[in-house]
Every structure is written in C-alpha cells, then in structure tokens.
C-alpha cells in the first residue's frame, strides 16, 4: 500500500496533463481519460479501506543519519491515515458521479477538453491536500484545487460567471495568503513544517504563546473562508451557482470540505491539539452559519442559489460538531461532512438537469416536473429528504448524532439552534419539491422530456447511497468514519489525540 499512496495524486495530475496533450484528438478522449483516472482513484481508495493500514510515503526522500545516530528521512511526507481514507473515498465516489454526469451535460459547451483538464487538477489538489504530511504541502495542494476552481467558476464566461469568479478569486487569495502567513509564523517559532514535528513541539510546550495564537487565528480565518464559515461566506452563494452544474457539485460537495473542513480538523485537532478558545469560536460561528444560512436560503427563488445557502448552513452543522471537541461530536461532524458531500452534489446535479429541461433556475417558473421527468424527480426527492433529515436517509443520522453531541456536551443553546435549523431546512425543501416537482405543470413545459440516462443515473446512485447509508454503516462505513474521527482525536481528547499520527510519521513508540 505504501508504494501506491502517491498514485492518489499522480493519477489525476497525469490525467490533467494527458488531457491537455491529447486535446487535438477530441474531447471524448479527454472524457475517457478523466473517467479512467477517477475510477482508478476510486479503486485505490477502496483498496486503502480494505487494507486498512496506515502508511507514510516519503516521496523523493533520502535517508540521512542524524548526529545522535538516529536514521532520519528528509523529504515530503505523504500520509495515509484514517482521516485521509474517509475524505479520499468521498472525493472518489462523488467525483465519479460528477464525471459521468458531465459528459452529456456539457455536450453543447465549447472548451470541454479544458474543462476536463481543470476538473482533474481540482481532483489532484483535493487528494493531495488530504494526504499532505506537512503544512506547506497542504497549502500548495489547496492552492492547486482553488486556482483550478476559480477558473471553472468562470467557465461559462457570462456576466455573472466572470463577476462571481473575480470575487471568489480575490477572497480566496486573501484566505490563501493568510494561511501562508500562518505557516511562516509557525516555522519562525518552531522551525518545522512537518505536521508531526509541529504537533510534538506543541505538546512538549516548545511551541506556544503568541506565535501559536497568531497562527491559529490566521488558519481559522483562511481555512474558515474556504469552508464558507460565516462571516466569511459571501463568495459562496455567487461562486457555486455560477459554475456549470457538475462543477457546482464538486465545489459544494467536495472542495469546501477538503480545503476547508478537512484542513480545519487536521490543523486544529491533529497538529495544534484541541484548544478551548478555538472550539468556542467554532461553536459560535457554526451556529451563526447554520441559522443565517438557512434563513437566507428560505427567501431564494433561484434553485442553485438556494442550494448554495444551504451549503453554508450545513457546514455550520459540521463546525458545531467539531466545536464540541468530544469524540462523538467529531465523529458526527465528519459523518455529516461525508453525507453532505453525497446529497448536496446530487442536488446540484439534479438542479442542472432541471435547468436543462426547463431553461430556467427559478422555482416559480417550474412545476409538475415529477410527471414529465420521473427519474430525475426520484433522485432529487431522495437527496432532498436526506438534507432535510428524514429517517432513514443519511442526513437524519448525522444530524441526530450532532444534536446528541451538543446536548451531552452541555450546550443546549447550540442544540436548539441546530434543531430549529433542521426544521427550517425541511421547510425549505418542502417548498422546492412543491414548486418544482409537484403542482401544476406550466403550459410552456408540457412537452419537456427527462434528461438522458447518463445524467439521471449518477443522481439516482448518489441518492441511493444516501438512503442505504444505514445499511452500509455496519458493513464497513462505520469503521471508516470512526477511524477518521479517531485519527483526529482519541476518546474525549485527553491527552491530545495525535499519538497514532505521531507513531505513524515519526516512528515513535
């Protein structure tokens, strides 16, 4: 397994460059390369889960002997642990659905070869970010994914697209530079970039005080903006709806989690160790994101904008789960992040199908589409029930776990806000279904036809996974999620739960 780990990054990167080189042979070739690439990543991530062992690969590293005779490998650590396995699986599953959906969705667009190049770069950036073993590489891979996503938001090159992309680019760059300054501060104070070395220095008290506080604030701002945490969310409701539907699904389903939530978990739990001040901030900002996000979503008529505001709100659930700092809270938060990736990408894909059928994104101009497009409607309803938290869909389980974690951590106010948000989310999606799928079919739409199978099957598969989560949980999914949470934090965070990670990377007992 150790030798296979770099392939998670190398395959999508190679696919991106192959697409660029083979552009002249037509975009079908690029599509085939992209599909093969993401299928290979899916196979690798399933293998990694089946094997189940952690691995450290020192890519390009070389062995040296320290003065005290200890062997030491200088190089860039690529670390496959429980947390990375969960996110790799989610990226591969959603990525495959998105690639399949994109073939027919984009059949009338120009520049499809370049779309595949950029999509592969986003995949490479995301897999690289979750495997990076040092903070600077984390930054580099987050940048690769982000820069490719800025360009993809502008893919349509219309007024809205370029304006949204410009805003997103400026805000995203400020966040990236804040992260880079944070890394510089950590390096200046500690002299390390390797995550495990920094973690040891923090635990032994060699790294602390103002430098640690400053770096924490910069990381919270930088990665919080990438995770669309309020008040740093303003770019998301513009950027996510402006991209083509498959890209919206990648941005909302995967990018805000790998470059935002994953990085927050890795930095604040594995590296810097749980800090009550950071956790309080995560709780408060998470509650604000949940509540304000869903309230803003209620007033939207544009389906994709509505979904984007729900992403802000649902990320709030993840943040409050992390903010509890308890083992249950972190498990629930990571579970909800994975669930959100499935149902939100399904919803964005089906919003693309509905837009293609009706020529509009405004809910008030739709209606009765369930009769004309039964397959798309079935997929949409499944995903909508999941995000609304209806049992037995996956959203129900993770929201229930977050509520239990909040109340058992003695945070009834946060629990109340979460429960109210869940109710308002349900109300919002009842509105979506009533306006778009049921009710009277407008005259104009009397002859619309369902989208081709390659567009509704990915949505149906994602919705089926949402429905079957409770079957998959005892069959191994539960171990993956709990393994991820255990890497982030051991039982109740005492002592700071980086032991397994340190053992893995530094070879310490």
């Amino acid at each position: 397994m150790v030798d296979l780990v770099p392939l998670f990054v190398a395959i999508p990167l190679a696919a991106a460059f192959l697409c660029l080189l083979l552009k002249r042979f037509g975009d079908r070739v690029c599509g085939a390369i992209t599909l093969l690439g993401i299928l290979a990543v899916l196979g690798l991530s399933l293998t990694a889960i089946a094997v189940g062992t952690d691995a450290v690969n020192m890519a390009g590293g070389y062995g040296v002997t320290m003065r005290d005779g200890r062997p030491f490998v200088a190089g860039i650590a690529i670390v496959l642990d429980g947390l990375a396995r969960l996110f790799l699986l989610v990226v591969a599953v959603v990525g495959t659905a998105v690639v399949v959906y994109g073939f027919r969705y984009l059949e009338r667009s120009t520049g499809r070869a370049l779309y595949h190049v950029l999509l592969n770069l986003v995949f490479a950036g995301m897999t690289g970010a979750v495997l990076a073993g040092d903070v600077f590489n984390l930054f580099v891979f987050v940048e690769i994914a982000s820069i490719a996503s800025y360009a993809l938001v502008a893919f349509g090159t219309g007024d809205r697209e370029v304006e949204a992309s410009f805003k997103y680019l400026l805000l995203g760059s400020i966040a990236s530079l804040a992260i880079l300054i944070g890394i510089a501060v950590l390096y200046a104070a500690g002299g390390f970039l390797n995550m495990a070395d920094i973690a040891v220095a923090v635990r032994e008290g060699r790294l602390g005080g103002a430098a640690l506080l400053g770096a924490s604030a910069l990381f919270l701002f930088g990665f919080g903006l990438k995770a669309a945490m309020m008040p740093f969310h303003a770019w998301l409701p513009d950027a996510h709806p402006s991209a083509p539907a498959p890209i919206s699904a990648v941005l909302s389903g995967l990018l805000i989690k790998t470059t935002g939530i994953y990085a927050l978990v890795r930095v604040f739990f594995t590296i810097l160790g749980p800090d009550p001040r950071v956790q309080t901030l995560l709780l408060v900002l998470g509650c604000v994101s949940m509540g304000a996000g869903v309230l803003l979503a209620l007033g939207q008529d544009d389906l994709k904008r509505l979904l984007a505001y729900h992403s802000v709100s649902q990320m709030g659930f993840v943040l409050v789960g992390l903010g509890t700092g308890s083992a249950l809270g972190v498990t629930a938060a990571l579970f909800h992040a994975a669930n959100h990736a499935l149902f939100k990408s399904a919803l964005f894909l089906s919003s693309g199908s509905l837009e293609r059928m009706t020529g509009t994104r405004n809910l008030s101009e739709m209606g009765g589409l369930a009769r004309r497009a039964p397959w798309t409607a079935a997929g949409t309803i499944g995903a909508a029930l999941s995000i609304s938290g209806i049992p037995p869909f996956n959203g129900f389980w993770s929201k229930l776990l977050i509520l239990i974690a909040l109340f058992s951590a003695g945070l009834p106010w946060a629990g109340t806000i979460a429960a109210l948000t869940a109710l308002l989310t349900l109300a919002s999606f009842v509105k979506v279904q009533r306006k778009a799928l049921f009710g009277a079919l407008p005259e104009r739409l009397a002859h619309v036809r369902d989208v081709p199978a390659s567009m509704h099957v990915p949505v149906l598969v994602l919705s089926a996974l949402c429905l079957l989560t409770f079957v998959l949980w005892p069959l191994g999914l539960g171990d993956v999620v709990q393994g991820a949470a255990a890497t982030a934090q051991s039982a109740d965070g005492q002592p700071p739960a980086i032991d397994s990670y340190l053992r893995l990377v530094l070879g310490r007992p």
Partner: protein
Amino acid sequence: MIYPLIAVLLFVGLYGLLVKRHVVQKILGLAIVEYAVNLLLVAIGYRDGGRPPILTPGEDPAAFAAGSVDPLPQALVLTSIVIGLGVVMLLVAIAMRLHQRFGTLDTTRMNRLHG
C-alpha cells in the same frame, strides 16, 4: 526593522485590494500583499552575516549549518512566487473578460449578483 516595513507593505496591499474600486488597482493590491508575504518568508530565514546556503564539497555540514542562512524559506518563496504568478495571470485574464462583458473596470458598476 524589516518586520514593521513588511507589515506596512501588507496593509498597503490590503488597502488597495479591499478599498479601491478599480479592478486593476485591486489586482495590484493583491500583488503587493503577495510580495509582502514572500518578503516575510525570506526575512524569517535570514541571519545577520549569514552566507548563501550552498554546501561546497568537503565542507563540514555542521559548520556550514551554523553559518549559512536558512535555505528552506527560500524554497517556500520560490513555490509561493509561482503560485502568485498563476493567481495574478488568472486575475488579469478574468479582468479582461470583465471589461469585455461590462465595458468598464469599475467594480461598483458590476452588480449582476446580489451576495
């Protein structure tokens, strides 16, 4: 002395980025912020009287490490400059599209979206 100057440069850049309305002024602001961060990285690795971090054959590595500046931040700066170049290039490309679409580079007149 160098760190306060870096802070000044950083805030000049942030001012241009956040307050100025013209697209080109915003892009220049971002470029200035990038320079400030790169300068910070180099300054962290600097050592008074340090020599360039190039190991000559036959030299004792320990003595070399004691006398040279820290090469690692310089490696980071190289990466960071490349990333910054990519970001600014993309921004300029998008700014050209903005001008094509809106006929202006004044951001207050680009409001098709309501955040």
